């Protein structure tokens, strides 16, 4: 059996490890357009900040491919899939045959058109190690950086670059930072924290036009919709990403905003799986299909797909994936953990607590007696207890929820559940 993987990041590594949990001898070929050893992609902002280096940010050890019997074709781009012939064609023209294929092509930054954008050279993006390297080369202490996008990528980039320059400005059309993740109240706390740490925020507006600064070579102005004009030397576009679905779409596979996959990563094409940021799958806490481009999901999807690919139809000792949105992110030492859904404004069962600088929000569905989601700011302690309740759809009587809201703990669980977790299970001889 020959497994081919397109991609070399979290989902691809999960797939390799999933295959090897089931089978030690099948052939694995890994194709990636980036030529780097597998690296921890979210760590590129920590690289900018000098908090890690290229050696430590390797996602797996140097001998990963060798130990796992992976033939790696790095620096090669897959340009098409032929699902009738079971082949992947590379940019070199070479065709690679497969019995099973995993597409883990990730997502790419999108550029929203703005007048004069083409004149800004280069317009940086911030999703790869090469992107980080390019910024490291051109950002000095006096460099004025303009970042378009106050989402996760834009703000992590801003944090990383603040370690290198005092001039970092961020523009976003949304009136709050992290608008896809936060409600307004915690967003305000985070906004103040970012500003205290020297990030200049321009929210609720966007760039109308870019124009060169006639007085300074290599410098530009961004004219904002609100009338302001911002001078800058380096531009980073972090206004969102789009799932890389083209290979599967061109091959006739079902796609929405991401490649459509089932709970084991199978696409609509036979023997073709997909995992990670390029996919759209079911959020088990709402039943909705969505792109959940978050690292834990990418690994779990890749691993599950790998196990299925290697099992070739044999039953597996694993459950279908219970994917939910879940994210941990921090800026300048202030951490936000979130999972599930919590945007049901006005819905019965939204509980918000402010305590000093910390903030907690829970969405407890009283009718179904289930925890649906949470946001925790600066109180990460034992958050995974909440995450598991959401992921597993655990029935949670209100009294138990109120106890857990005060403090996460296993103590709120029924006695038998605690015993199952904590006690040794004797195996009958």
């Amino acid at each position, binding site marked *: 059996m020959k497994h081919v993987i397109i991609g070399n990041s979290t989902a691809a590594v999960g797939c390799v490890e999933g295959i090897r949990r089931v089978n030690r001898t099948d052939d694995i070929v890994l194709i990636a357009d980036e030529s780097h050893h597998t690296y921890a992609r979210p760590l590129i902002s920590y690289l900018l900040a000098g908090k890690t280096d290229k050696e430590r940010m390797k996602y797996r050890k140097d001998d990963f491919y060798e130990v796992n019997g992976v033939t790696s074709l790095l620096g090669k781009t897959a340009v098409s899939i032929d699902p009738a012939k079971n082949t992947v064609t590379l940019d070199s023209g070479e065709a690679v045959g497969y019995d099973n294929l995993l597409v883990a092509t990730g997502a790419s930054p999108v550029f929203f058109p703005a007048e004069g954008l083409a004149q800004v050279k280069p317009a940086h993006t911030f999703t790869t190690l090469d992107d980080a390297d390019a910024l490291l080369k051109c950002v000095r202490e006096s460099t004025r950086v303009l970042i378009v996008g106050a989402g996760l990528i834009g703000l992590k980039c801003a944090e990383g670059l603040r370690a290198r320059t005092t001039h970092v400005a961020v523009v976003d059309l949304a009136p709050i930072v992290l608008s896809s993740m936060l409600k307004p109240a915690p967003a305000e706390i985070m906004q103040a924290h970012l500003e205290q740490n020297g990030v200049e925020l321009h929210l609720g507006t966007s760039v109308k036009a870019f124009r060169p600064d006639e007085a300074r070579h290599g410098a530009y102005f961004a004219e904002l919709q609100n009338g302001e004009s911002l001078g800058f030397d380096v531009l980073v576009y972090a206004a969102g990403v789009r799932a890389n679905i083209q290979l599967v779409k061109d091959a006739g596979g079902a796609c929405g905003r991401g490649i459509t996959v089932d709970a084991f990563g199978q696409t609509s094409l036979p023997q073709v799986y997909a995992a990670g940021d390029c996919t759209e799958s079911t959020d088990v806490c709402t039943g909705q299909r969505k792109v959940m481009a978050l*690292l834990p999901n990418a690994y779990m999807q890749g691993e599950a797909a790998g196990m299925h690919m290697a099992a070739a139809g044999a039953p597996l000792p694993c459950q279908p994936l219970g994917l939910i949105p879940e994210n941990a992110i921090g800026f300048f030492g202030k951490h936000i953990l979130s999972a599930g859904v919590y945007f049901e404004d006005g819905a019965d069962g939204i509980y918000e607590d402010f305590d000093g600088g910390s903030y907690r929000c829970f969405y407890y569905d009283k009718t179904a007696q289930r925890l649906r989601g949470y946001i925790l700011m600066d109180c990460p302690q034992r958050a995974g207890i909440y995450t598991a309740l959401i992921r597993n759809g655990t029935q949670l009587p209100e009294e138990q929820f109120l106890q857990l809201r005060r403090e996460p703990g*296993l103590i709120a669980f029924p006695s038998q559940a605690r015993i199952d*977790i904590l006690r040794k299970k004797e195996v009958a001889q």
Partner: protein
Amino acid sequence: MRKIFVREEWCLGCHLCEYHCANANLGNGDMAKALKGRRINPRITVEDDGRICFAVSCRHCTEPDCKKSCISGAISVVDGVVQVDQDKCVGCYTCILACPYGTIQPNAEGHVVQKCELCLQNGCEPACVSHCPNRAIIYEQEGVSA
């Protein structure tokens, strides 16, 4: 492999496991000198509501959500022991978000995480086990009667 198990019915809620854990991870010196007057940051947690009490630390899961969720590849399983490479960890707390038992913590400075690694790095038997006065915390082979 041997793992730590907890027998809730024997726990007195004395919190000695937390102190001995903190002390073992600070080098096993004089506990009073090391911890007196300091806020400890142990890798085991005693839960106590006045009626029920028990200790909880890493279960060393065979399907560790923390390892799968780690954004930097800092968490690995070595001979069944779930370990954090603090040199690779960037302190993003995704593992804290993922651990269903709440057994991973920020370290004292908050820059990286820490968890129970069975005192293997401390060169001793798990300190929480050896100092539990009531044998409410035990260190035994999984699934085999003692």
